[in-house]
């Protein structure tokens, strides 16, 4: 049994991994090494890391168009994730998925679903399979507050409720759907409040506090495993970066951004670790260096990996 202190240090390490991975990816993208577009996760690390720390390897998650953090938190290897961003054969989806479809069945992550709300119905099927097999597995659906205005949100939540499915719906409310502020598209500020309409327990948690997220997720996962049905967990958070690659963020103020950056989930846990004496400066410096080495190794791996063979492009459509 790992000590709680070791668990907390792991949370810190994984959040740093996500942050540094994203920062490196951003540069690689600007340098033209990574094709397409990227939707990045800086600022929201506490949500993916806190929730996934409450899951076992055999539990599953669905993700969104912003999946890099979910993937690393659920255990997709940085090498396989980075190689996928490069579109390489060694990527977790063999270069067929890309940034918006990161996933790895071996660690319990579907290829991320980049249709807003797409995972909210599919996750019920994961839960249904687990329930029918009595396998004690749990399925988690990550989605943004924007998805709460999709029909799929409502159909998925209601169906999971009436079937008492072992599902946790995790809303990452980062206040903006692309450029559109949440208060422009919902008269009710709380996403969690919508759970009540379906007889589901809805909770709001500080999504900038990984320990609070973890605690709420542990409770929700325990309820799901016990056959008590779904929970809607709304994590209030903020993306420190634009929606996607070329977003200049003209729709929100720099003051608002700087207020949220005061609540940086990594800085917050770092202060707690130092205050409590569970870690010291030099230890955290070492941790950062180790994380960066892992990321550089992943970049080197991705660069050196072969492209997929165009002759095999038809091979994965049908079994």
């Amino acid at each position: 049994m790992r000590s709680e202190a070791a668990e907390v240090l792991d949370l810190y390490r994984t959040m740093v991994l996500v942050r540094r991975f994203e920062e490196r990816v951003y540069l690689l993208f600007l340098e033209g090494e990574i094709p397409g577009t990227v939707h990045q996760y800086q600022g929201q690390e506490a949500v993916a890391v806190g929730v996934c720390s409450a899951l076992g390897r055999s539990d599953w998650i669905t993700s969104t168009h912003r999946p890099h953090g979910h993937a690393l938190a659920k255990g997709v290897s940085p090498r396989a994730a980075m190689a996928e961003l490069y579109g390489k054969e060694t990527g977790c989806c063999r270069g067929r998925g890309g940034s918006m479809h990161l996933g790895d069945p071996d660690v319990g992550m579907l290829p991320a679903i980049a249709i807003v709300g797409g995972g909210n119905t599919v996750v019920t099927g994961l839960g249904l399979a687990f329930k029918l097999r009595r396998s004690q597995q749990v399925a988690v659906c990550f989605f943004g507050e924007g998805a709460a205005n999709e029909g799929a949100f409502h159909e998925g939540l209601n169906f999971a409720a009436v079937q008492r499915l072992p599902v946790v719906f995790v809303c990452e409310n980062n206040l903006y759907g692309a450029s559109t502020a949440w208060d422009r598209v919902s008269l009710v500020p709380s996403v969690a409040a919508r759970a009540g309409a379906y007889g589901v327990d809805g909770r709001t948690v500080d999504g900038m506090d990984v320990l609070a997220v973890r605690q709420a997720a542990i409770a929700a996962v325990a309820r799901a495993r016990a056959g008590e049905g779904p929970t809607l967990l709304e994590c209030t958070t903020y993306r420190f970066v634009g929606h996607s690659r070329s977003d200049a963020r003209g729709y929100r103020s720099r003051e608002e951004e700087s207020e949220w950056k005061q609540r940086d989930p990594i800085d917050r846990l770092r202060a707690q670790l130092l205050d409590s004496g569970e870690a010291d400066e030099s230890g955290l410096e070492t941790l950062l260096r180790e994380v960066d080495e892992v990321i550089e190794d992943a970049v080197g791996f991705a660069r050196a990996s072969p492209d997929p063979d165009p002759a095999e492009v038809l091979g994965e459509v049908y079994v």
Partner: protein
Amino acid sequence: MSEATAGTRRLTVAEALREGIAEEMRRDESVFLIGEDIGIPGGFGGAFGVYLGLTDEFGYERIIDTPISEKAIAGAAVGAALMGMRPIADMQYSDFLFECMDELVNQAAKMRAMSGGRLSAPLVMRAPVGATTRGAQHGQSPESYFAHVPGLKVVCVSDAYHAKGLLKSAIRDDNPVLVFEHKLLYGSKGREQAGGLDPSSEVPMEEYLVPLGQAVVKRPGTDVTIVATHVSLYRSLAVADQLALEAGIQCEVIDPLTLLPLDTGTIWASLRRTGRLVIVHEDTLTGGWGAEVAARAADECLYELEAPIKRVAALDVPIPYAPVLEQAVVPTTERIRAAVLEVCR
């Protein structure tokens, strides 16, 4: 009963489908049913009675009645299939498939490719098609939308024997399969509406499968190849009988059974003998699957053609309600006959 031979008996399409489902549920614990009004006690066993009685044997855990939530039905089927279950999902009317296009087209069809071949979604979605004086939103034949989607398989069943054998193959297939059935062919009612059609057939007592992706020649002939599905198949067969008697024209009538993947081998072999092709479907004309068959036939068989390729399809309008208007829209025997005579001029 006089037609029955040893080891077979006559079943309607609904009975054959029910029997196929029950056999697969007995054979494989991972098969389950999900849909609206399919197992409700005192209910009607699905919109067309296909599931009647199945809860007696399989109970309510494997026959899951859902809210009226087509996206949830399809999404649950996709998710469960990705986890290795074999759901048979039910749409009461194929028109409702448009409610869950994301789940079918973006999720079910693409998960295998997006995962680099690491996952598959072995689900079956059954959906009734066809114009039956229910108007524009309960009368479409939307199979062509799905025949356009790489990653899906699309099956059209027309009689009891093929319905059972194809459904069983669809359930065992590791890919997502949509099975389209025509409302006038279930056999429970509406036979008069269907012009006296009898889609029942001799079905073996013993287990059998009909492979996906293989067409069947329903009537051999030498002068014209007719490719048709569902009710249009029966109307084409009736036209073939008429023209053989009245004009000595021998039509070869082919039921493709699977639209995706399409068995072009069987169709081209026929076309190369007859030199004439008429395609008949109740899906609308523009962009219908007949257009794909025609384009491929032109590509592969043009120099063996004796006449232009003809398509007889529903007119490009929403299906109207008034019976007289509906009959003006769907491919009738008169229109099929005119098309065959035209290519035989």
